[in-house]
């Protein structure tokens, strides 16, 4: 159906990544970036949507797989398709609306019309082709699509393992993460989008970087209430980072908030007392406790290679733009059909830290920007990734684990990066 043209030169990328350090051209080399976009982003499962973003037939959203624009759409039978957003005639995009509902995709240039499943249905002035145009030969290019627990992933690869195998032990953590619906399905409630002038892997590293938290996020901690500040005392709570294979890792920051369905008898934190009181008007005590415990999100960040983080209470989506430009999206999550007061509380918590005017994200963006700038100096000097290696342990299932501030998650991601870039 499609002809594969060679797109990237072969380079010795693997040599850049050692066991405990990496070459800083990892952030700065445009040729390496181009190679990553094909070798990694076109050869693995890339997160494109949450099921709640396209709940009904005809619902669609625009997304990207690497640098390639795609449309994620649910057809009338409920099947999700991911198509490259490119007309089969002369390449115009079919859609420039971020999110919406439609019956078909009609190219604005010469009017070729495609069904939701990507098949070509109509060609204006078809007579000009003298019956030689076989529409069946020109469907949209569709990716493989699989879903786990509402997380929709797509890949250009026909060969790679099923999503379920790719996620492996990360699935258990996804299950735990989704418990913050408190019995209601998880839904996205809008997203913050911001950009920083730096390489995408700088952000990837950060999702399992507890080390920076008490330092970079001092102004957030100062502004937060006492209980929130205490719960973020993550360097002293016995948390850990674990390598989950295939580049994935989990960083447990607040061990007491790993399973939100446990400890429902624990006292309700002062900061949620008013919310609990409001919920009691319409919900039984047991449900109030469940909702209140879930409102602040989970105590861990799950980093799924290469582009999704299930981070405490939100999805962190990473979108490479150029070797030195990255877009980060933080999608707020809520309880579908859950109490409005609880969802409002979640929105306010999200706004407090995340987004272009949050008390956290701009400081993250600033230090990532500094990494990119600094990496222009002494190109031969390595990026050090050895924190926590000296006391890293290998658990029963062969998974590496170290303390919460260890760089174990980054080592896991770079090991996968190396495998994929060398393949």
């Amino acid at each position, binding site marked *: 159906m499609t002809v594969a043209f060679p797109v990237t030169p072969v380079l010795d990328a693997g040599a850049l990544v050692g066991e405990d350090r990496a070459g800083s051209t990892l952030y700065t080399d445009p040729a390496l970036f181009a190679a990553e976009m094909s070798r990694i982003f076109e050869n693995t499962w890339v997160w494109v949507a949450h099921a709640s973003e396209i709940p009904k037939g005809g619902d669609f959203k625009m997304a990207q797989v690497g640098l390639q624009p795609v449309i994620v759409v649910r057809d009338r039978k409920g099947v999700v398709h991911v198509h490259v957003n490119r007309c089969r005639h002369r390449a115009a995009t079919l859609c420039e609306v*971020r999110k919406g509902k439609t019956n078909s995709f009609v190219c604005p240039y010469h009017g070729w019309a495609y069904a939701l499943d990507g098949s070509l249905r109509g060609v204006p002035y078809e007579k000009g082709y003298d019956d030689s145009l076989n529409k069946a030969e020109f469907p949209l290019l569709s990716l493989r699509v699989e879903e786990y627990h509402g997380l929709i992933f797509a890949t250009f690869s026909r060969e790679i393992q099923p999503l379920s195998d790719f996620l492996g032990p990360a699935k258990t953590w996804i299950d735990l993460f989704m418990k913050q619906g408190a019995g209601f399905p998880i839904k996205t*409630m*809008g*997203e*913050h*989008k*911001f*950009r*920083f002038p730096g390489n995408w892997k700088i952000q990837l590293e950060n999702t399992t970087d507890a080390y920076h938290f008490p330092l*970079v996020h*001092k*102004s957030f901690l*100062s*502004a937060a209430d006492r209980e929130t500040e205490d719960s973020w005392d993550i360097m002293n709570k016995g948390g850990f980072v674990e390598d989950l294979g295939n580049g994935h890792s989990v960083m447990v920051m607040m061990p007491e908030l790993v399973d939100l369905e446990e400890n429902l008898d624990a006292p309700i934190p002062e900061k949620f007392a008013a919310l609990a009181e409001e919920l009691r008007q319409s919900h039984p005590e047991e449900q109030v406790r469940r909702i209140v415990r879930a409102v602040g999100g989970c105590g861990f960040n799950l980093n799924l290679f290469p582009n999704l983080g299930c981070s405490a209470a939100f999805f962190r989506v990473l979108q490479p733009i150029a070797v030195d430009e990255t*877009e*980060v*999206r933080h999608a*707020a999550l809520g309880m579908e059909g859950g109490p*409005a007061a609880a*969802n*409002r509380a979640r*929105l*306010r918590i*999200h*706004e*407090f830290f995340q*987004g*272009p*005017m949050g*008390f956290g*994200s*701009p*400081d993250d*963006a*600033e*230090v990532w920007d500094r990494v990119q700038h600094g990496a222009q100096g002494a190109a031969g000097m390595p990026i050090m990734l050895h924190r926590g290696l000296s006391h890293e342990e290998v658990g029963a299932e062969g998974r590496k684990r170290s303390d919460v501030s260890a760089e174990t998650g980054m080592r896991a991601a770079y090991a996968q990066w190396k495998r994929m870039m060398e393949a």
Partner: protein
Amino acid sequence: MDATTRTAISLQDAMEVAWLEADLLDSADYDPWLALWTPDAIYVVPAEPAGDDFENTLNIAYDDAAMRAKRVERLRSGQSVSASPVARTVRLLSRFRILSSEAGRCELRCAQILTEYRRERERMHTADITFVLVRTPDGLRIARKVVRLINASDAITGVSYIL
């Protein structure tokens, strides 16, 4: 409410409050800025261009009095790496129009073009701003300010100051 707080707000009076607020922010004079609001006022920077159910929607900023005070503290504390130093800003407000007016209260809409400068980078943010202004015994106060960036739903860079 006494008679003085029920007098209609003229366009000239409303513009003066908007310009005063802009000047206080550009000159980082935060105490009088904090005092310019009614106690239950909300400052909003929506994340989507349409809609006005801000309370039940994700915003870029949604600040009540306590959050405004925290935001000011963040800019002053030196603890935030993105606000040390705070970006310098110059904002121009124009195209003023009173959308509605009742006794002692009005809704004012205007355009804002803001240039930000920090670390050798100059950026521009363009927005429609809607103020709700009210007369109080202490003078005109802001009861609501909504800053609608024209590119609010696009990715923007960090804004570690007050729009």
